[in-house]
């Protein structure tokens, strides 16, 4: 992994990280979103995304799949599906 700072879009493309949502919010009535990162530069944001991509890698050996469908109603993934 290059140490050169990169912008958010570049990191997303390289690591396949589409969204980073910091949380969870502890509010019980409406969904909350951290906005601090909207005010930082894209390069600093890129560093955040790189750190998250690294954190994902550190947990690659302890993955629990949740929300798996029942066998009789499975649908295959679609490579062209729009991102979240």
């Amino acid at each position: 992994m290059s140490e050169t700072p990169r912008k958010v879009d570049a990191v997303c493309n390289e690591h396949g990280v589409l969204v980073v949502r910091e949380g969870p919010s502890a509010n019980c009535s409406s969904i909350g979103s951290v906005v601090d990162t909207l005010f930082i530069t894209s390069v600093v944001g890129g560093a955040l995304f790189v750190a998250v991509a690294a954190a994902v890698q550190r947990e690659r050996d302890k993955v629990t799949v949740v929300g798996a469908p029942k066998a009789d109603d499975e649908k295959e993934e679609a490579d062209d599906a729009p991102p979240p």
Partner: protein
Amino acid sequence: MRLRHEEWGAWAMLDAEPVLVALHHDAVRALGISPGAVAPGPRPPLEAHVAVTERCGAGCVGCYVDAQPDGHEPTLAELDARFAELARLGVFVVALGGGEPTTRRDLGDVVRAAKRHGLSVVATTSGLGLRDEHITALSELTAVNVSYDGSGDTYADVRGFRGSSGAESAITRLTAAGVHVGVNVVLTRQSLPQLETTVLRAIELGAREVQLLRYKPSGRARSLDYLTRRLTPEQVAALGVDVEALVSRLAGRARVRIDCALLPLLSLHPAFSDADALKKHGVMGCEAGENLWAVRARGSVAPCSFTGSDEGNALTEAASDTGLSAFRAWNSAPDEPCASCTLFRACKGGCKVVSSFLSDAHGPDPECPRVRAHAGRVG
């Protein structure tokens, strides 16, 4: 980490830090994880707000569910079944609310039941009358938010009684117990001018996160008083600058969050004007019925805590719930000006609780500056 397959890849909730990540197919494959099947139909939410009781004796004038001291309280077994179903669906986070969760004598058991199902569990409390056993129960949570709209008169103006010292004590005691504490600050015409003072006070007491909440006409707040409490158009116009200044003032001492209903009110500020950037940073607008569901104390499902009624389907029948599907249907074919708004993919049309109150329609948020400008253009 917990990972849920999606058509575009997977959502992953990390174990080591509270971060939810959307990963493209290729990133999932790079983890050595085979592509997974996805159930047909609407996707389950990422987060569910679960009312563990309807009881609350605080009597806040703007309570969004009109909570009462003698409200309904589901049994522990009923709640356990709801947590099990949410976990089966692949929900990552449950936020315990009410009513006031600390009115339950078995709050610790409720928290442990949710955690046994592998859910990340958080809660909101008024903090009033918090006893040691409540602190113990809440200390098992990922995070706790205390409702704190300001000190003294500011709190009293929003809530209708002088309770800020109770909330302040709760922030201090929960922090001392090692809890990650945030504060919920409701923004009204009267509380907004005190925002910086309120937030700095909360941080001084130990809060590490600030969630800014839009005042909504729901429950006891669904009255004409709403019109004198909501933010003025001038306050809305300056809100983005206010939030930016707050983030700068805190300089990393505490995170700043906005709730889903605030996104349209910030839509004139450059930092909130790029839907792609907002989505990449996980900033969500109205996700009611999609990435967010609410489960009421009697077990019915609702698009969010402010909507629906006890007539909603049981959680196990959520797939056919008409309330959830109405929100999804509007999002798939929104009315103008949302349909052509560049922010729609993130904003989702603003708060439908506000639109249903002000215009009696499930439609664009009438308080959004972009919607107001459009209305001015078309007359």
